């Protein structure tokens, strides 16, 4: 039951993009095409899930044992950056097709605040390791959902007859705001 709660909360109610406003940069940057949006979504899901578990282990068995929790942010960034590099290396060797599909988005994740945000929030919520993994995965799932929704809206906006002053980012930001309000409606779900 707990796990289902975490999934629903992370995907809909506390969607990291629409209600916590993390990961806005890729949300606006790569959401102009459905193809790139799904590519980025898959890459983020992969890295966030792995990063959540590894940061959890480091927090519990290194930082808390040595009483240096204040180094959390720096250590977590180190973990995420190395992890992204590692995943890139492995993918390049084992699955070139997946590597090509993810392309430049993989290294971009290093600077995606959603990965760090999820890792730190997991610690704050005192999740155990399974809950952490589920939380990381569902957070990224929510991010992917946001990206795919935005991409489908923007693909339509591309061909729409729009006033010059609203073309491009102004209208994208308005659309993002409206979607965020819509997602706020989910807060009554639980």
């Amino acid at each position, binding site marked *: 039951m707990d796990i289902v709660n975490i999934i629903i909360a992370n995907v809909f109610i506390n969607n990291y993009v629409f209600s916590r406003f993390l990961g806005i940069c890729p949300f606006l940057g790569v959401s102009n095409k459905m193809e790139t949006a799904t590519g980025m979504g898959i890459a983020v899901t992969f890295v966030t899930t792995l990063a959540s578990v590894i940061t959890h282990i*480091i927090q519990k068995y*290194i930082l808390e044992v*040595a009483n*240096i929790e204040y*180094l959390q942010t*720096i*250590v977590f960034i*180190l*973990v995420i950056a*190395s992890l992204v*590099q*590692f995943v890139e*290396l*492995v993918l*390049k*060797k*084992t699955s*070139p097709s997946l590597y090509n599909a993810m392309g430049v988005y993989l290294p971009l994740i290093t600077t995606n605040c959603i990965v760090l945000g999820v890792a730190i929030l997991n610690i704050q919520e005192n999740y155990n390791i399974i809950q952490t993994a589920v939380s990381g995965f569902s957070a990224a799932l929510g991010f992917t959902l946001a990206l795919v929704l935005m991409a489908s809206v923007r693909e339509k906006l591309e061909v729409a007859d729009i006033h010059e002053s609203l073309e491009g980012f102004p209208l994208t930001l308005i659309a993002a705001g409206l979607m965020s309000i819509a997602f706020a409606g989910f807060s009554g779900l639980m």
Partner: protein
Amino acid sequence: MEITNIIQPILILGGIGLLFGALLSIASKIFAVEIDQNVERILNVLPGANCGACGYPGCEGLAKALAEGKAESNACVVGGQKVANDVAKALGITASEFEKNVAVVLCQGDCDKAKDKYVYQGIEDCKAQNILADGKKECPYGCLGCGSCYDVCAFDAIAIINGIAIIDREKCTACKKCIEVCPKHIIELVPYESHAVVKCKSEDPGKAVRGYCSIGCIGCKICVKNCPEDAFSFENNLAKINYEKCTNCMTCVEKCPTKSIVDVTYDLIKEENKIAG
């Protein structure tokens, strides 16, 4: 305050960093991917414009195809003979002969010579105009003059003069972008060495062409009869030159009664004079 409180975190953080660094360097050895040296060398000699005229996704795509032997050394249409030679050198093979093409707009019906059927006031885009009753010109084949090709040309080779697109032979690199964008399909690639070109695409009978354009091909077949090399074919009321047979004798250019066959080298000079005057 004890000194260990400072040293311990430094050691732990440094240790973690060192551990990850070591893991990454080991991983980079284990998961090392061999990169084809040829690809990089070829990529260096290609123009790097990523225009896609070769049919591959960007210069890197072509470089890969070249390294695998899937493409000819003259595949880069923009680079010309020089790039073909460089590529051949990088691959260690003899260069293929590069045949230079240029794009030509096959229409001369400018504002004075071709009649309009309505006044177009929509957005300046050929595709948009074409949707509205096949464009403003009475001739359903002619250049619409809205400059969609001009917008897409990356080499600044196209000008719109008096309602008609003209391509500069010297600047054109045959990247085919204008050919793709033209809704009337009246831009075609012609060998650079061929100077005589039928600048009309109208497949209407002569009487109809005469009615709406003073410089269109009326299908009189004078060029077909007079060509000493037998380079002309005649289909759908339109003369067509076989550029492989053409010897640039210019008989057709002289004989054509409507001047729809032109010497493209001379034509350019004429147009330039018109701008100056």
